[in-house]
């Protein structure tokens, strides 16, 4: 077991190192792609951190993402950069706590719609504020560093997110989340403080998402609400996590990489068909891959084992949860 663990960690470290050196060998366009990839892997992993085990489908991703970007836009000329990031994280945390405290008792469709409405409300308010109070719709962000630095920051955040997610998966907190996802009544009777657990995870996930927005903001140079509060970010994050499997450590990353590349290609070649493909993907996931690709593969493996008459007991498809 520890052997496997050490092997896994070395492999992850090697992959991370390779990714970190990548900008030295590729052109600016590829660095741009890498930024997008690292961004969406982080977003979908952070999304799954909360939404995977609790099954709360959140569409507030872009609300926090945009808040991060706007904090940077508002503060980048006033504070040194590390403090700007810290401020963004702080704003994200504060809003996440307020939203979480007031909404986590909503479940199912009410939560979905609330989070969607929240993102729209934030966008409308920021737009109104910019137009009526500051008098300009957009803001400029000038930073002294280039896309490589943005990429490295995102890569570090991505690694941290995956590591945190791995730790949580093995911790008491991770078990608590699985129990809550299964049956809240049992969770409470086991002594779990449901509200606090959900709030902690929601806040953690929101802070990471806010940071992704903050780190990516300088990429745009010019931002306005329509750009950074684009609801597509929420939808993409959601569909990436679901495609890979929101209950697996590597699931969201596995969904994010191909989908990001696919949508990048689509928006370059078939911009008009973008949303049709996105829609078909949603439908395909619901009907063909309800637990994500990883669960599908596991089920297929389990099935082939059963067929070959392996005596080992296999887990029931659909309900089985992988232990990473």
């Amino acid at each position: 077991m520890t052997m496997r663990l050490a092997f896994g960690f070395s492999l992850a470290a090697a992959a991370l190192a390779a990714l970190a050196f990548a900008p030295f060998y590729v052109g600016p366009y590829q660095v741009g792609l890498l930024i997008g990839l690292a961004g969406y892997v982080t977003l979908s992993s952070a999304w799954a951190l909360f939404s995977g085990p609790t099954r709360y489908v959140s569409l507030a991703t872009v609300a926090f993402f945009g808040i991060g970007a706007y904090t940077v836009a508002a503060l980048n000329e006033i504070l040194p950069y590390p403090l700007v990031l810290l401020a963004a994280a702080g704003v994200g945390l504060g809003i996440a706590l307020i939203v979480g405290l007031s909404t986590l008792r909503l479940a199912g469709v009410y939560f979905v719609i609330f989070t969607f409405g929240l993102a729209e409300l934030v966008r409308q308010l920021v737009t109104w504020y910019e137009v009526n109070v500051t008098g300009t719709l957009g803001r400029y962000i000038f930073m002294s560093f280039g896309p490589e630095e943005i990429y490295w920051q995102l890569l570090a955040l991505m690694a941290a997110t995956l590591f945190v997610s791995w730790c949580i998966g093995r911790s008491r907190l991770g078990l608590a989340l699985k129990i809550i996802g299964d049956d809240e009544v049992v969770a409470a009777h086991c002594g779990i403080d449901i509200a606090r657990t959900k709030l902690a995870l929601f806040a953690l996930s929101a802070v990471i998402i806010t940071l992704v927005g903050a780190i990516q903001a300088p990429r745009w140079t010019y931002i306005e609400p329509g750009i950074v509060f684009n609801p597509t970010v929420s939808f993409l994050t959601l569909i990436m996590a679901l495609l890979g499997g929101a209950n697996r450590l590597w699931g969201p990353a596995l969904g994010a990489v191909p989908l990001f590349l696919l949508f990048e290609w689509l928006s370059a070649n078939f911009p008009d068909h973008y949303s049709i493909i996105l829609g078909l993907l949603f439908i395909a996931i619901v009907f063909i891959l309800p637990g994500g690709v990883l669960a599908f593969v596991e089920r297929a493996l389990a099935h082939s084992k059963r067929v070959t008459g392996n005596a080992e007991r296999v887990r029931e498809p659909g309900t089985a949860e992988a232990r990473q």
Partner: protein
Amino acid sequence: MSALLEIRDLTKRFGGLTAVNGVSFDISRGETVGLLGPNGSGKTTVLNMISGLLPASGGAIHLNGEKISGLAANRIARRGVARTFQLVRILPSLSVEDNVVAALAFGKKRLWDRAARDDALTCLERVGLQGRGSENAADLTYIDQKRLELARALAAEPSLLLLDEWLAGLNPTELRIGIDLIADLNDSGMTVFLVEHVMDAIRALCGRSVVMNAGMKIADGPTGDVLGDPGVVRAYLGDAHA
């Protein structure tokens, strides 16, 4: 000796319906007490208020002299109340072992990792599920799911164990095993409060019984006396038989 559980004037109203109406009784340490009554008499509601699943509309519940009514279910669980549910509630996406670890990790013992796994194995053995820890909980048979639910309740090492028709739906062999299991728990000093319809089990297990009808307590005493009480017979069978 002071009572482990004191219930005073406990009341629950659902809109216009008073499901539990001013019920009071005590349970001493080490007792096994039955809660009887026809369907709809408010038994499960009483259990739900003790475990914190439902807030009481009036009255008070004290455990070990401390007020627990008004606390959230997770707080009450940590103070040593564990329960099973009328419709068995296991955690279907977890393994059998993790179902038990669930109670160990967040209860008053807060065990984790090795210690939790060892303890979970002991609990599983206690209910006859030894060697089944790695199975998927959803794949268990009905009786095994009931066993698992009991193992989870026991894992918390509760000072008060609430069983809601835990014996219902078992076949005669399973029933005998089930009764023996609860009797063992009582022998080991655990206080058990059970809602039950299986009269054989009540006679075998409960030295004392509380009977409810239409939300009120109508009898409380040694089980033999209570079951012969004309008021209780009337509540169960109607006036003609009294």
